[in-house]
């Protein structure tokens, strides 16, 4: 009983430590800006940021909807392409040898350099933004899934073959479920990249979205609004990562049981 209480207290302490750290940073920030040690034109106070957030909430909401739509389409498409690439590269060694270097090269090109070209080729609508998100997202998905597929236990595969399993059955029963932990880890990375990618692509051209809003408030030197949108983007990323965490728990119930043992 005493040990259980100790563990519970430890768990509460572990969970509250980040919240305390954030609170301390906010208080220090408020003191520095409230006492004008740092002038407000350089750094707005947390209270000003909250006020700007509340005042512009309807505008932020409508722009968020556009950014989220781009992000969602890009994420789903990028994940699907990443999944497909990982499957075929795992199945055919020649395709792995041919495509893997190309997959890596796509990540060495700076996003900020591609984005204007995409705008030039595909205009100011959603398409160039989605393409950019797809380029950003498919890499972590492909690499992690491929790693997961390739780390399947060869003895397990031999056992499946001895049972008469086809390649598809081996994929379904061994490789895919075995790669789920890597898939969800990469999906968490991909979703935060996708949100950032959507915002960056909107900086370079567009009519709506949080990136467009960010550009406008920056040009107006409204840094309180700038910080408000930065925190919103951060909050969206965290929320999406949290949702993926829940999805992971639902899809991998055995991991929860393992934790309890």
């Amino acid at each position, binding site marked *: 009983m005493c040990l259980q209480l100790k563990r519970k207290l430890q768990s509460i302490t572990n969970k509250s430590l980040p919240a305390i750290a954030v609170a301390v940073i906010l208080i220090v920030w408020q003191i520095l800006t409230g006492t004008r040690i740092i002038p407000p034109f350089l750094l707005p106070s947390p209270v000003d940021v909250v006020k700007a957030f509340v005042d512009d909430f309807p505008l932020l909401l409508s722009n968020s909807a556009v950014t989220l739509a781009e992000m969602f389409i890009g994420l789903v498409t990028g994940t699907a392409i990443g999944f497909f690439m990982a499957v075929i590269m795992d199945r055919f060694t020649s395709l792995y040898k041919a495509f893997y270097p190309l997959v890596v090269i796509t990540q060495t090109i700076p996003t900020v350099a591609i984005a204007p070209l995409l705008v030039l080729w595909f205009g100011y609508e959603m398409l160039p933004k989605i393409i950019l998100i797809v380029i950003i997202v498919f890499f972590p998905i492909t690499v992690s899934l491929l790693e997961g597929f390739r780390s399947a236990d060869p003895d397990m595969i*031999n056992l499946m073959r001895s*049972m008469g399993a086809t390649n598809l059955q081996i994929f379904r*029963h061994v490789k895919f479920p075995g790669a789920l932990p890597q898939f969800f880890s990469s999906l968490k990375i991909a979703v935060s990249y996708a949100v950032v990618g959507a915002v960056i692509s909107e900086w370079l051209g567009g009519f709506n979205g949080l990136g467009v809003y960010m550009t406008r408030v920056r040009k107006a030197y409204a840094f309180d609004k700038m910080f408000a949108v930065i925190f919103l983007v951060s909050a969206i990323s965290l929320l999406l990562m949290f949702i993926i965490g829940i999805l992971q728990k639902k899809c991998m119930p055995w991991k929860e049981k393992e934790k309890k043992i």
Partner: protein
Amino acid sequence: MAKLEVKDVSFSYDGKTNVIENINIKLNKGEIVSLLGASGGGKTTLFNVISGLLTPQRGSVFLDGEEITGKHGKMSYMLQKDLLMEYKTIEDNIALPLIIKGEKKSDARKRVGEHFSEFGLEGTEKCYPAELSGGMRQRAALLRTYMVSNNVALLDEPFSALDTLTKDDMHKWFLGVMDRIRLSTILITHDIDEAILLSDRIYILGGNPGSVKNEIVIDEEKPRNKDFNLTERFLNYKKEIISML
């Protein structure tokens, strides 16, 4: 007619140097036969040939008189690692070979469910492998092997990863369950005591390339008394085997 027969089998990975050579083994219905020999003697290669995962350059494998050389899916084997899938429940792990053969999941679950108490696994159906002890996991792995076995099981050092006490318990349990299900079994082991205790016959493998050096019949009634390994007869078998290795 033998349940399983391996005739003049030779196998080489590179096509030049044989790993096993001229292997002849017979397994009769309901019999437990051990392959005993040093590591690297080609025992696991021989299992891969028997199960059809490898095709030998020479020789043939027959199951119930039908040639099955190079054909997998005819029998399953069980390794030192239980190879239970951590993401499937015990019943789904055991039902997997039936599902692979095309059986509906619900039917497969029902069929495997009938054997849970026989294998001492009742109550573990919905558990994940991580929730089971080493011994229970090996029982589940053996039941899975049994489900796909065509009444022939190949067991590759199934108890070597267990601690001594669990291993003793597993040996008693194994002899009991094998007596009931009459599963024709080939067992790879490095443990002479285990081979004598569990087997009807023992093939001694040795040399390079590996080949059958001797065959010993353990002429003792089954199920064997739990104190059999303390008898003089047991020690005589052991001395005979040691002299051959």
